[in-house]
């Protein structure tokens, strides 16, 4: 019984129910049941909704909680001392029993209790699957028959179908909220677990980042956030130093000076930069920009490392150019023409108009765009993973390697998913920090941009 088959059965049920509703209402209408309130396909749709909703509900609940139920059943089959010991041996035993029950072999000798548990589990799974699928099918068919009996000329099928559609739409928009809730809940709960190992003060104000991996677990290693935060800030500053002038001047030139034809060609080309995956920028930084910078440094007598804050910041700046330029372009277009015309009428040159009238008027919007770009620079991962050098030490020189919050998240969590020690849990504390910082930047930026839009609407 795999999920594809279940989906297929649901689809068949759906089609069948629709057909039943449609033909039933049509038969009633032709046999002179009177004028129908709703058209036949609404009756069909209503019966289909009635039939599929309970079945889907049962199957959905099983998909969500089935694993938990079967895990607790397996536990009840295993020897008591193994269960009370808990931890890794228990998890291994459960997965071994599951593998045996599903017919795959397992490595090593199969203990008697394992074989017995596997047999019982296989039987249990068969029975439960039959019960679940059977009850889903029974509920579906009962509901179908019930809905079929409800069909009368006066049944407001259309209104009910529409109400169901609206409910579905509401559920879909709730997913966005659920996502936020999920992010906050998972970050906060795992971060709190991390803070049971490490004092929050040591985390937020520590100046040494040295997460030692040790087999004994426990609170070994130093988890100071400051070196990472400093690396992140430094790279973001360099990126903005590159992106802001180039992006803003590009927007001004394309918006104010460039002939229409040039703008139509150049704007999409610059925006290509925004669509390129960040891993590509990372590769570009590592293999082209880094060697170029260190070669250039050697030429003028500076020691520039191939992977450094400068390399990562420069390439990140290139990535952010289109972000700044298209947002600023939008904002400049929204400044009313009357302001510009007034300035020209007083004899100002074009650049004077731009600098003294247009930019001040557009300033809030541009600040908003700037903040959004900063938040993007802070959250950027792949460029810094490849090109920042991964050296989490507090130093001010941008020509040296550094590390960032995002790099450390990747380093701490990659390949490790039993979140038991501080080594992996720290990723969530870092993620929480990152989330809060970017959230603040985004909220302020979005508020400013929104206010700006309303001002000139």
């Amino acid at each position, binding site marked *: 019984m795999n999920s594809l088959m279940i989906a297929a059965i649901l689809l068949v049920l759906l089609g069948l129910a629709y057909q039943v509703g449609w033909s039933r209402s049509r038969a009633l209408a032709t046999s002179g049941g009177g004028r129908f309130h709703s058209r036949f396909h609404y009756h069909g749709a209503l019966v289909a909704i009635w039939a599929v909703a309970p079945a889907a509900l049962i199957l959905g609940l099983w998909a969500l909680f089935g694993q938990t139920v079967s895990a607790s059943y397996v536990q009840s089959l295993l020897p008591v001392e193994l269960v009370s010991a808990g931890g890794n041996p228990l998890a291994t035993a459960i997965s071994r029993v599951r593998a045996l029950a599903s017919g795959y072999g397992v490595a090593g000798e199969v203990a008697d209790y394992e074989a017995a548990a596997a047999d019982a589990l296989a039987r249990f799974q068969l029975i439960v699957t039959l019960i679940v699928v059977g009850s889903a099918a029974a509920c579906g068919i009962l509901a179908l028959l019930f809905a079929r009996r409800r069909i009368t000329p006066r049944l407001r099928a259309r209104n009910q179908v529409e109400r169901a559609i609206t409910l579905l739409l509401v559920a879909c928009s709730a997913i966005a909220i659920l996502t936020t809730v999920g992010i906050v809940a998972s970050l906060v709960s795992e971060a709190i677990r991390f803070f049971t190992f490490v004092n929050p003060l040591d985390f937020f104000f520590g100046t040494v980042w040295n997460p030692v991996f040790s087999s004994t677990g426990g609170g070994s290693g130093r988890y100071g956030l400051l070196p990472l935060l400093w690396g992140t800030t430094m790279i973001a500053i360099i990126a903005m130093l590159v992106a802001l002038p180039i992006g803003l001047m590009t927007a001004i030139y394309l918006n104010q000076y460039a002939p229409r034809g040039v703008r139509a060609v150049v704007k999409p080309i610059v925006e290509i930069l925004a669509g*390129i995956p960040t891993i590509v920028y990372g590769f570009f930084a590592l293999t082209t920009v880094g060697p170029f910078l260190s070669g250039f440094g050697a030429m003028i007598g500076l020691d520039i490392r191939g992977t450094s804050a400068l390399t990562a910041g420069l390439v990140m700046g290139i990535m952010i150019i289109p972000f700044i*330029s298209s947002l600023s372009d939008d904002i400049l277009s929204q400044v009313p023409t009357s302001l510009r015309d007034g300035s020209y009428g007083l004899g100002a040159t074009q650049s004077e108009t731009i600098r003294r009238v247009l930019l001040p008027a557009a300033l809030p919007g541009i600040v908003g765009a700037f903040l959004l770009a900063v938040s993007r620079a802070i959250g950027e991962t792949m460029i810094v993973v490849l090109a920042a050098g991964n050296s989490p030490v507090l130093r001010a020189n941008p020509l040296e390697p550094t590390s960032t919050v995002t790099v450390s998240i*990747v380093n701490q969590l990659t390949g490790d998913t039993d979140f038991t020690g501080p080594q992996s849990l720290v990723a969530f504390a870092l993620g929480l920090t990152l989330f809060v910082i970017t959230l603040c930047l985004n909220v302020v930026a979005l508020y400013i941009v929104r206010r700006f839009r309303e001002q000139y609407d």
Partner: protein
Amino acid sequence: MSDLSNQTKAAGEDRHALVRKGLARRHRTEWLFRAAGLTAVILALGFVAILFTTIVSKGLPAFQQAYISANVQFDPELLNLDPAPERQAGQSQADFQAQSFAWQRELAMLNWNALVEASLRDLLPIGFEIDSRQLLSIVETSERHRLREMFVADPSLLGQTVPVEMLASANVDNWLKGTINRELGDAQQQLSAPARQLADEFYENGVIHMGFAWALLTNVDSRSAPASAGLAGAFMGSLYMLLIVIVLAVPIGVASAIYLEEFAPKSRLTDFIEVNINNLAAVPSIVFGLLGAAVFINYFRLPLSAPLAGGLVLTLMTLPTIIIATRAALKGVPQSLRQAALGLGASRSQMVFHHILPVTFPSILTASIIGVAQALGETAPLLLIGMNAFVAQIPTSPMDQATALPVQIFLWNGNENRNFFEARTSAAIMVLLGLMISLNAIAIFLRTYLERKK
């Protein structure tokens, strides 16, 4: 009187002179400002050009690869093996399986290298001395497995001699293409001196030739045989994830956009949802990876490294993009259309589904494709849910272990055989960018086509 007028005239001329004097400076500033703008545009365009030319110039050579044309004799003396067991009537399944396992083990134990070596020895120039380890170092290690698979697929090859195009090893590829410095001493070269000489001689007399690197597109990743490493597995992984994103993110995104734009009453709650969605769109992608690790992997126990988990994470990440773009499209529909539909007695859903949606369909389609293309290029969140595992099989379902194109680029970029993999990584980037560009091109084409049809 005339005095006064003279005075004003003089003052006017003074001011005129003043303005004129300043004018040159002001025009210079104007010119400078404009030049600065043009410089910025040229810089931005220059970055695009540099990015693409470096990637293409690095990646193009990797689409060509060295092959060795050899005649392989499936020598019965070397391939001393009973025919493959067939299931006898009355034989139990387990018994038969054990038997075929034993046969396969025996098959793998045969000296396939000897086959490869014999075929190469036939081609050696007269009087060329080379020991067998050095000789075999010019062929990729995957080729002996390929010969075995050829034999399993067609046992009648036994005793025959067939021409086979074998992949030359990555080191030979580097040597011939000059990606490794040919002047370096023996100690720094990957190939021994006789092997290098042989590679050169083979290349000159046409035994080794450059051909299109099909391995790059049709093979899966390989650690032991770099020259045979390909993108097929990563491509399938990406494809599964994209399917999940298309099936989930597009309908859910469009549905919530419709609700927020057309149904939702203006209230605190909908305001909150809106702010929420705008924020989600700006949350760093790695945070979605953390969400996936904590919720999908750790709580729901979805399989690690599976496209299913990856697809779900990418779905959540793409949702805000699709919602925002769809809402913008819905906002663009003139209010009169809604009023006309409602005025004729249509219900709200009829208005939306019969009139508004068909009008906005091209924009929604474009927005969805662009969102999906963005998901295709995402790397960071996938690293956190274990999609950077080494996978040597093409995944056959979304529950199998897999990797994705951008993650494969990340992995290749970290390979120790830099000389070889720098080009291969660039080539993989070209494939990824090619896919993304074609997706975007499809989006643009569909929009223009559908809008013209209207």
